[in-house]
């Protein structure tokens, strides 16, 4: 039986979510290679879109892969490079960020940024009402950040909740801490914080604690970092909920791709993983204590 | 004294009532000066008198605060930044102005490269550079990088650069300060060749015999004032010195005391082999002044640097007071009482962008610590002492050393070395760029040090200096000792014969004395 080579191209672990994603990919590689001796998985990580395009070239020219699992750094720039891989006949699984031309992919596995923004806004609206104030800490200016943000703003419009300001915190704890400190010195009345990402959430929480304003407000994060999920599970009033954006989706995508080769029928289609609200009741099922994220 | 035909011709470059101040400090007061085609006009004066400043004004590098300059009979504002060169005014600066990373050929043609269709004519430039260097009898490769050359070679490159340009007025600010007699004569030949073609030469030097030999007229400056402009024939070295310093300079060299042949050997070098040094052996006794003579590049500096640990020693031994020493860095040699004063004051000796104090105390900073911290008072008093002892003239202590006149930089460096209070001092061209008045002082200081029981190695290209001060003289040639002279043998002709390789060092035993 021939070796089947599956290339996995993902962004490098430069922040928490990507770290989690990298971890899940590595775990899945171990698991799948152990279970299927004829499968060889090669994971490469990139620091930017151009770097990732180079990785894709290398996977083809050096490793001659039979299938590609790719989480594009950005959608548009990687569409053509992925198409070039597809043109070699490889099976293509796209994760998280869709290509501009969906016809290239065989399988699409994704979280849902729009849903994530909407679910966060909906929760805000259950807790707050007319005249209440919130602040928003965004990630890095990219498409998915904009999707989340636009969805959130669209949902919250007309609810009477004031968005005092939004700033970028770069999916980074330190930036989250500092931006929140500044929001706190700027706004005497804040009722809620949308932190959009759990790394930012951790910084925000520390800043609120430092200012001693825990009782005034609550924070909604995103992604499902284990520390945050644990807090939700334990009923932390400051972080009552979290919105899932599963880093494990890469493992799902790899599973699906391997299935295509070892199961009988061809595998196609879209696997959209929702962004459910993690609450104290359901937190346990989203808690992975061994994951680094 | 070759061509005086231009004497009656109109001046090509002249200055009328030129004054110059740096900030509020006046440096030149209403100077009149002119130079005619084919003439050599010397400027002399004490250190800091304003000679360099005057020639900077005459070449457009500094604009006068008041007064006018005429060129070719017309009043002119000379363009700054060496652009006056295009008008035929070429300068050799007192401070070497060469970019260390460029090659010799590149440096000679910098700013006026030969090109064809926009591309450099490398071969032509190299050939021309080689030709010019050849006429100067300089043995440097046109492709050598400047930072691999000795100071004297750099000076020769500067000269080659200036000569190669199409000069109508050639200004030379102490070009001979680091040159030995041979090179100086070569330079003079070239100057005579140029003046014969009608080039006007302004020549600055502290070596009065050179002035007497070369110049038709002499202008004397003192404290920025014009003292006189006179024809050379009316002068004697004594009267020049009188005008410069304002006092009689009777005996330049102090009387030599008899060397004590039984004095203990304080420094003993045996079979030293190092970069530029091939098997050198000699002894230095307590209270002795040992002269090192030789042509440029003969390896005198290389010997000194190998001894103090600045260059790696490949073979041989160095003993100080009978103890074998293996100096791997300067700190060790200083600690053993052995100090070396470099001749490259700009590149190796002084930090040009800081003030006087940090420079003076850099070698001996540990002496100025109080409870582990720098003691500003102690540094200030050290400076005061050095200023008095070496007559350093600076506007104030915070002035950047790079702005001092060349001679004052040299005095500061002397002060810096003497701060270490060494028992053995290796002085490399100690009076480079120093005026006669101060030279006399320094010679007396050197003699007094020897009388006190300090030992001195004097490396100098100024033959008179070596002869006038040394108890014994070693002559080097191509990295080896070519001869050794003692007592009455010490004479110019003899030294020259060894240095040029005409006479060999007889029996080898004698040389490695």
């Amino acid at each position, binding site marked *: 039986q021939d070796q089947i080579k599956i290339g996995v191209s993902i962004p490098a672990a430069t922040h928490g979510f990507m770290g989690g994603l990298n971890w899940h990919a590595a775990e899945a590689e171990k698991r799948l290679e152990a279970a299927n001796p004829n499968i060889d998985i090669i994971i490469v990580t990139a620091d930017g879109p151009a770097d990732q395009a180079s990785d894709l070239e290398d996977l083809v020219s050096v490793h001659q892969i039979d299938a590609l699992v790719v989480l594009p750094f950005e959608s548009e720039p990687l569409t053509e490079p992925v198409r070039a891989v597809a043109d070699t006949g490889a099976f293509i699984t796209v994760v998280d960020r869709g290509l501009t031309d969906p016809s290239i992919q065989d399988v699409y596995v994704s979280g849902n940024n729009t849903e994530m923004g909407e679910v966060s806004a909906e929760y805000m609206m259950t807790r707050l009402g007319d005249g209440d104030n919130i602040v928003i800490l965004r990630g890095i200016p990219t498409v998915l950040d904009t999707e989340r943000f636009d969805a959130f703003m669209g949902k919250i419009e007309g609810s009477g909740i004031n968005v005092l300001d939004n700033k970028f915190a770069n999916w980074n704890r330190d930036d989250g801490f500092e931006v929140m400190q*500044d929001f706190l010195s700027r706004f005497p009345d804040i009722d809620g914080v949308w932190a959009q990402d759990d790394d930012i959430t951790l910084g925000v929480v520390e800043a609120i604690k430092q200012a001693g304003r825990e009782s005034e407000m609550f924070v909604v994060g995103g992604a499902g970092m284990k520390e945050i999920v644990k807090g939700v599970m334990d009923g932390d009033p400051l972080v009552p909920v979290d919105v899932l954006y599963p880093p494990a989706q890469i493992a799902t995508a790899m599973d699906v791709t391997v299935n295509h080769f070892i199961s009988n029928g061809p595998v196609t289609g879209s696997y959209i993983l929702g962004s459910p609200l993690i609450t104290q009741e359901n937190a346990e099922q989203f808690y992975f204590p061994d994951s*680094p994220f | 004294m070759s061509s005086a035909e231009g004497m009656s011709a109109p001046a090509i470059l002249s200055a009328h009532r030129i004054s110059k101040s740096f900030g509020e400090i006046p440096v030149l007061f209403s100077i009149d000066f002119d130079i005619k085609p084919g003439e050599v006009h010397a400027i002399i004066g004490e250190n800091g008198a304003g000679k360099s400043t005057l020639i900077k004004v005459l070449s457009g590098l500094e604009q006068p605060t008041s007064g006018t300059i005429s060129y070719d009979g017309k009043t002119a504002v000379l363009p700054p930044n060496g652009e006056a060169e295009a008008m035929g005014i070429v300068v050799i600066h007192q401070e070497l102005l060469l970019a260390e990373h460029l090659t010799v050929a590149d440096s000679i043609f910098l700013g006026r490269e030969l090109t064809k269709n926009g591309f450099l004519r490398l071969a032509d430039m190299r050939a021309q550079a080689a030709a010019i260097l050849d006429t100067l009898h300089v043995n440097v490769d046109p492709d050598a990088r400047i930072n691999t050359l000795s100071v004297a070679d750099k000076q020769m490159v500067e000269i080659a650069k200036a000569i190669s340009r199409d000069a109508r007025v050639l200004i030379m600010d102490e070009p001979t300060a680091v040159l030995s007699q041979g090179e100086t004569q070569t330079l003079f030949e070239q100057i005579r060749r140029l003046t014969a073609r009608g080039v006007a030469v302004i020549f600055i030097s502290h070596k009065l015999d050179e002035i007497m030999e070369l110049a038709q007229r002499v202008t004397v400056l003192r404290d920025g004032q014009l003292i006189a402009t006179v024809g050379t024939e009316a002068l004697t070295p004594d009267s020049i010195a009188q005008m410069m310093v304002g006092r009689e300079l009777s005996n330049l060299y102090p009387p030599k005391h008899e060397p004590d042949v039984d004095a203990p050997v304080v420094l003993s070098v045996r079979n030293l082999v190092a970069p530029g040094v091939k098997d050198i052996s000699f002894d230095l006794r307590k209270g002795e002044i040992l002269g090192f003579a030789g042509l440029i590049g003969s390896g005198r500096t290389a010997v000194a640097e190998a001894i103090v640990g600045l260059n790696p020693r490949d073979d041989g031994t160095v003993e100080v007071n009978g103890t074998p020493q293996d100096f791997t860095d300067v700190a060790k040699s200083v600690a053993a009482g052995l100090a070396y004063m470099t001749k490259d004051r700009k590149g190796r000796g002084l930090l040009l962008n800081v003030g006087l104090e940090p420079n003076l105390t850099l070698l001996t900073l540990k002496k100025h610590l109080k409870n582990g911290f720098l003691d500003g008072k102690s540094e200030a008093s050290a400076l005061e002492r050095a200023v008095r002892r070496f007559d350093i003239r600076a506007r104030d202590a915070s002035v950047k050393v790079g702005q001092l006149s060349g001679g004052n930089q040299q005095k500061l460096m002397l002060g810096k070395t003497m701060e270490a209070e060494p028992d053995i001092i290796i002085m490399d061209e100690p009076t480079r760029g120093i005026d006669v008045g101060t030279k006399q002082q320094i010679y007396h200081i050197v003699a007094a040090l020897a009388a006190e029981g300090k030992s001195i190695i004097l490396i100098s290209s100024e033959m008179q200096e070596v002869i006038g001060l040394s108890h014994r003289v070693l002559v080097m040639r191509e990295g080896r000792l070519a001869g050794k002279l003692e007592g009455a043998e010490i004479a110019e002709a003899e030294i020259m014969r060894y240095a040029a390789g005409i006479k060999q060092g007889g029996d080898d035993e004698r040389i490695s004395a």
Partner: protein
Amino acid sequence: MSVSAHEAAKPGRSFRIDLKTLGPLLALILLVILGYSLNPAFLNEGNITNILTRSAFIGIIAVGATFVITAGGIDLSVGSMAAFIAGVMIIVMNTAVDALGASIWTVLLGIGCSLILGVGAGYINGFLTTKAKIEAFIVTLGTMGIYRSLVTYFADGGTLSLASGARDIYRPVYYESFLRIPIPVWVFIFVAIIGWVLMNRTAFGRYCMAIGSNEHVARYSAIKVDRVKTATYILQGLCVSLATIIYVPRLGSASSATGVLWELEAIAAVIIGGTMLKGGFGRIGGTVIGALILTAIGNILNLTEIISNYLNGAVQGVIIVAAVYLQRGSLRGARKKAE
């Protein structure tokens, strides 16, 4: 006749020294005025405390960088080094907590470990530049990549978090105040003073300037050039270690995102403060102000809404360039007047 000139000199000189510190200070004052006019909350005690505390990290590192740069070197590895040290500290403290339970000793162990690592990392940079004679830029670019990778590896791509027992004990180091001044600010003040004294009142500082200004002259002046240069990198490592020690209790975590671009900020603080990138001249006071300027810019941008978030970087860039221009300009102007 040299004496008369001597006397005239003194006042001019002290005046010039004033101007030197005045440059960056002026820029900072203008920035404060700008901040206040955009949002009066800028001058709230809380906000000022925040700015001071934040600037402590970059400031402490920048004090070390002042020495490296003054001696003619450069250290690009400081940000990664901070992340690496933080990571190892956390691993060590967590291990200690598991083995022995959390106590003040756990934290002291972590701090000791940080100091050793900082000195060690600095020594490696120094050794590779001076003994192996590799350009400082390349050496520290290399170690930058290495430390960043190592912390990512230790954290398994994620985040290393301090065990909560140790965290509770350690937390006050960042969050507590003494005489109403937060402890990190005290550390910053302490480092700045030591740095200033070292730079201006010891032989070591003088040697750094001499080496940066002309290495040959330094060597001919009996200065052990390699040793002093290595010492500047060690000092830099020590500063990074101190910054890390007050950083870790802030969020109790380290990841591959920790300390990213701190090297650029630290160098910028040094240069804004008036130290020359080519070496030979270092101003600790300026560096401290440079760090404050950088932090204040970030803070001001968070306090207003008038510009698009996307343009933050542009505004930051413009202010940095303008601040340096102002500072140099005011210096030139005042000098001219003084002349």
